[in-house]
């Protein structure tokens, strides 16, 4: 068994993405103006679901702690003695953590702490640990932290995670449309073109999936970045970034597409997160689209990554 790492859920993903970027994000309730942790889908003060995200300072004080001299679980034997801490952030919420870079004798309840972001690159998870804010109280090999850079993300961009667009119906799939697509893409596989090639008749090539949803968009309805303003029912997350790059495309197929099918596409903002690179910050927007056919069968699920800078 491996040491357990967090598995984010859709509603907590911004918190973990924030840690990946060296930022501590707290849920903020727009109704009662409180901030809270851990992230929930309703405010624990007023039960509102009108929630956004606020960037916290990341600094706090030691609310309480213990030094565990026996492993709390065999998987944590390598961390003994474990400095198990409850940290109260300056904004109020408390979180579970451990203390690092501190000799045992220097630990006192109430001491000022600052965050240490412990990256687990393979799992794309960062754990939030804490060290004394006063460098004199730290141990010999204390890590130096660079201040987080300015963010392209806003509260509103994070709030869009999980938002679902309306279901859009594509135009009916025809033999002619499939033929045109195959010739245009130089894919002359008889399965797409010859009704006799397979006992099931013609099926559309996998890449055909989004074709029934391509409609003409007048130039005036394109945004600065060339993407249609009306995202077919889905509101693109508001970002401070201005340029969009294609960042990858993943599709899983469940059913073939045949002439006569009428597909429906429903899209959802799967994730919005930021990564710092040598050339600056990029915001990754992942949009998931689920395609179903006229019989309600799931045809495919695609995830489109758009990089914004």
């Amino acid at each position, binding site marked *: 068994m491996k040491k357990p790492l967090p598995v984010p*859920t859709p509603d907590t993903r911004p918190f973990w993405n924030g840690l990946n970027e060296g930022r501590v994000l707290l849920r903020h309730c727009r109704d009662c103006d409180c901030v809270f942790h851990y992230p929930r889908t309703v405010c624990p003060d007023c039960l509102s679901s009108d929630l956004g995200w606020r960037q916290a300072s990341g600094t706090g004080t030691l*609310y309480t702690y213990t030094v565990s001299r*026996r492993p709390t679980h065999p998987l944590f034997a390598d961390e003994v003695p474990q400095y198990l801490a409850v940290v109260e952030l300056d904004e109020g919420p408390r979180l*579970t953590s451990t203390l690092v870079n501190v000799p045992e004798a220097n630990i006192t309840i109430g001491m000022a702490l600052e965050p240490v972001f412990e990256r687990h690159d393979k799992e794309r998870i960062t754990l939030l640990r804490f060290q004394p804010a006063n460098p004199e109280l730290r141990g010999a090999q204390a890590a130096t932290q660079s201040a987080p850079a300015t963010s392209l993300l806003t509260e509103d961009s994070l709030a869009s995670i999980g938002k679902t667009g309306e279901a859009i119906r594509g135009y009916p799939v025809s033999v002619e449309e499939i033929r045109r697509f195959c010739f245009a893409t130089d894919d002359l596989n008889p399965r797409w073109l010859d009704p006799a090639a397979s006992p099931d008749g013609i099926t559309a090539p996998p890449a055909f999936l989004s074709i029934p949803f391509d409609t003409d968009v007048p130039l005036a309805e394109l945004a600065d970045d060339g993407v249609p303003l009306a995202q077919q029912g889905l509101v693109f997350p508001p970002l401070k970034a201005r340029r969009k790059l294609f960042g990858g495309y993943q599709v899983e197929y469940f059913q073939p597409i045949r002439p006569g099918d009428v597909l429906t596409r429903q899209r959802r903002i799967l994730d919005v997160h930021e990564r710092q690179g040598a050339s600056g910050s990029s915001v990754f927007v992942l949009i998931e689209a689920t395609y179903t056919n006229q019989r309600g069968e799931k045809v495919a699920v695609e995830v489109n990554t758009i990089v914004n800078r």
Partner: protein
Amino acid sequence: MGLQGRAAIAGYVELKPEKNPQGEPLSGIQQWAQLAQLALRDAGIAKSEVDGLVTSAVPETGMFAPATLAEYLGIEVGFAEHVDLGGASAAGAVWRAAAAIELGIAEVVVCAFPAGPLPVPPEPKPHPFPFGASSNEYGSPQAEFDIPYGNLAQNCGYAQIANLYAARYGYDPRALAKIAVDQRTSACANPDALFYGKPLTIDDVLNSPLIADPIHLLEIVMPVAGGAAVVVTSAERAARARNRPVLVRGFGERLAFKTPTYARDLLQTPIASAARQAFAMAGRTPAQMDMASIYDCYTITVLMTLEDAGFCAKGEGARFVLEHDLSYRGDFPCNPHGGQLSFGQTGMAGGMHHVVDATRQIMRRAGANQVRDCNRAFVTGNGGIMSEQVVLILEGAA
């Protein structure tokens, strides 16, 4: 508001705790049936009269536990509860049974808490709870925000509470140790206790290894096998049963968090409001109690319960402990059978130990450990990390 004292405990069973259990292991359902049988015999009440049951989780049946038990025992019940309050479940079961009886929806309710070893199936499955009382299931807040930091198991949570208490009120390790020592004195008069014949001194406790600062090894319960049950019935029916009826006069229950990190104020324990409600319901005060049966998973739990229940002021617990003899023959008998610290912690039956201990005393069946003139008892159940609290006020029928 609340109970009128018209329900009573009429019988009980408490199995002798065993560190290395002998004999063929029984399933949870079989153990439940055995405890029900013994408790009903003790009360002198026939199985045919049972019309209610309260249980905690039954290992063999993750769902539908009450129906499975009713079927297995061949009873039809009008009241069935599955209580999931950890160490507070047993006390929680007793007040629920009493409430059902006062409502008139049940007459005889069995509350059983097996804690024996389970038979090993021919094809053992992986342990369903690899992280103990913390859930590592996808979507569990503990899995996401606590377990990855090693914040699991009970010791560290109680130690965090103790350290916070120390920072706010000061901490006298000798007073904490004395709680374990006084209870050991009681256990040394009780041949059933796990630590019978093994006296203890304050220095023994303080010289035992630190497990999670500031908690020493001998301030922590030792898990053993066992099991306990009570029969709760109407005061009238109890009067015709075999033992002195032990009336359930008041109760309180509070819970607000699972992990101490998220408590509003870790030092304002749920004990305070649970005890306040229980005393008010019973029309009694802490000073009127003849004994206390306080859930004692750790010494700090007892200290903070004494304060928050009002036996002494907040921050005065250490002085209170040093000024009183907490043994069965002392001026403030607390856990006169040894408590879980010295009797042994019988898993989920550990909470029932405190109900049974008070019942045994009020029924005047405590043998060498009998507290003189014991008519009223303060009983607590404590689940999680001081996160789930139930208080009972029990009183012997005149």
